[in-house]
């Protein structure tokens, strides 16, 4: 009994120490962001942030990029994961390899390689945001694939497919009206994680020179004192919101999904 009790005490100790490390920077940032007016706490820094048209422009740009990344990512991954599970299980090792690539090629190296290839004809893509979206999709591939694959394995896709086909459903109908609705949780958690990642992504956006949200925050930092903290708080709330939604959806806590690319 004594051992049990001391175990719990030590557990609490480590947890509280760790929690302090996690919480103190958040409190400090929030507190700092409220200090824009001398002597009193105020929301002045936030008002300043929301008064900037650049804020909306950069955030809107990142929103568009996030939406495009989610759509392109899903369109690429969903049919492939479905088909590999149903018909081509021998491709699994190849897929494993592909989903490891974004980890092996860090974002900064990916940017380097993309610019090297696509900044001149025959494939001049650097002037188009398409290259940025492609880079984001590449970085999102591991967790998109893993989350959708796990979802597919949890349902009996073979029976569902055969049942739908025997009722005369076309392949597109099978995929989008039978399989996809059964993957709601996997698809939504993949979407929210992609959203959180793209909104906060700095490396690709700044190296490919796009006016995205994270480069904007960094830019504000060079001229303002309290506004960057306000933007950091906003950014954290956005991340918290997206991940919190994943949790609320009952998205399973997956360890492998963490093997995404670095930022």
């Amino acid at each position, binding site marked *: 009994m004594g051992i049990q009790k001391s175990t719990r005490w030590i557990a609490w100790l480590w947890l509280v120490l760790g929690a302090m490390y996690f919480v103190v920077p958040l409190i400090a940032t929030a507190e700092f962001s409220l200090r824009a007016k001398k002597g009193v706490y105020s929301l002045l820094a936030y008002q300043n942030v929301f008064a900037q048209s650049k804020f909306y422009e950069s955030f809107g740009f990142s929103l568009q990029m996030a939406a495009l990344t989610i759509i392109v990512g899903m369109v690429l991954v969903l049919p492939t994961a479905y088909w590999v599970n149903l018909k081509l299980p021998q491709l699994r090792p190849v897929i494993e390899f592909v989903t490891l*690539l974004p980890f092996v090629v860090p974002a900064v190296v990916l940017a380097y390689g993309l610019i090297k290839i696509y900044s001149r004809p025959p494939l001049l893509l650097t002037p188009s945001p398409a290259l940025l979206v492609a880079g984001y999709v590449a970085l999102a591939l591991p967790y998109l694939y893993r989350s959708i694959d796990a979802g597919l394995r949890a349902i009996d896709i073979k029976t569902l497919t055969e049942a739908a086909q025997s009722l005369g459903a076309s392949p597109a109908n099978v995929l989008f009206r039978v399989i996809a609705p059964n993957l709601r949780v996997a698809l939504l958690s993949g979407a929210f994680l992609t959203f*959180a990642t793209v909104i906060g992504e700095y490396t690709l956006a700044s190296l490919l020179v796009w006016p995205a949200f994270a480069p904007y925050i960094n830019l504000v930092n060079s001229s303002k004192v309290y506004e960057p903290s306000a933007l950091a708080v906003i950014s954290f709330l956005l991340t918290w919101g997206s991940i*919190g939604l994943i949790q609320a959806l009952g998205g399973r806590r997956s360890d492998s999904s*963490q093997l995404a*690319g*670095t930022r």
Partner: protein
Amino acid sequence: MAAAGSSSVRLLMPSELNANGIDAPTTASRLWGVVKTWLVVVPFFLFAFMFLVLPALSITVGSFSDNDTGAFTLANIIELRRPSIVSAYSVSVRISVVTALLGGVFGFLMAWAVSLGQLPRWVRSALLTFSGVASNFAGVPLAFAFVATIGRLGAVTVLLKALGVDLYGAGFSLYTFIGLCLTYLYFQLPLMILVITPSLDGMKTQWREACQSLGGSTWQFWRFIALPILTPPLLGAMVLLFGNAFGAYATAYALTSGQINLVTMVIGQQISGDALHNPGLGNALALGMVVIMVISVAIYTLLSRRSARWLNR
């Protein structure tokens, strides 16, 4: 109808049907069926080839090509011996090792606390949810959070000064190696917690009971049973943390304005305008990163295979 067609062809294909005289598909239609089956996955692999494989390939080829003639050369690889580049690799490796070890140890302790430490259930789910958020909270906002905390005018700096501890007077700076380590830990710790908790959950209570019934102490349980079982996942997770820190760019850039000499910073400068005055060397530098990442991913894969023996994740 293409995909549905292919599946029905395949249902009729087994050879015993042919032997019984039911119409055998011609070679051409069989071939078409195979092609159709593979056609579905073409976009995915084409994309992966264009935007992942090709960039990596181009960096590799560029590393071994002469800048002017394009002929094969090892000159770029040899150039990596430049002191500034060696030092960039050394700082990157050291920062990754330090944060992987610290993040690994303290992350493990926190994961242990919520997994085996008999804490209330809500503590566990709160920590895991928070870790999910914090491991994604990297880059520019994270850097600002730490500036607001222990930057020159940060809350903790000011508080400690009021208590008589002058951090910056004592030589501490957020914008150096140690400050960067402290900041990196903010995403390293949660990653460790997320990766290692399933392994700790996989520890069976029967093992502990068996140990106790044979008269083993808590120390003996950890020394002879738990740690040997947990070593592969622990090492694997730390290798993952190493790679996570090694490839990081945004956090370090935002914190030090690119002033700290990391490999990722040098590559960033090389992109913005041939800072090394040698495109071939830029390739070799990037290739070096990829090689180190490949090695760490390989070690991680091997270790997680080993750990699957005891702990089915």
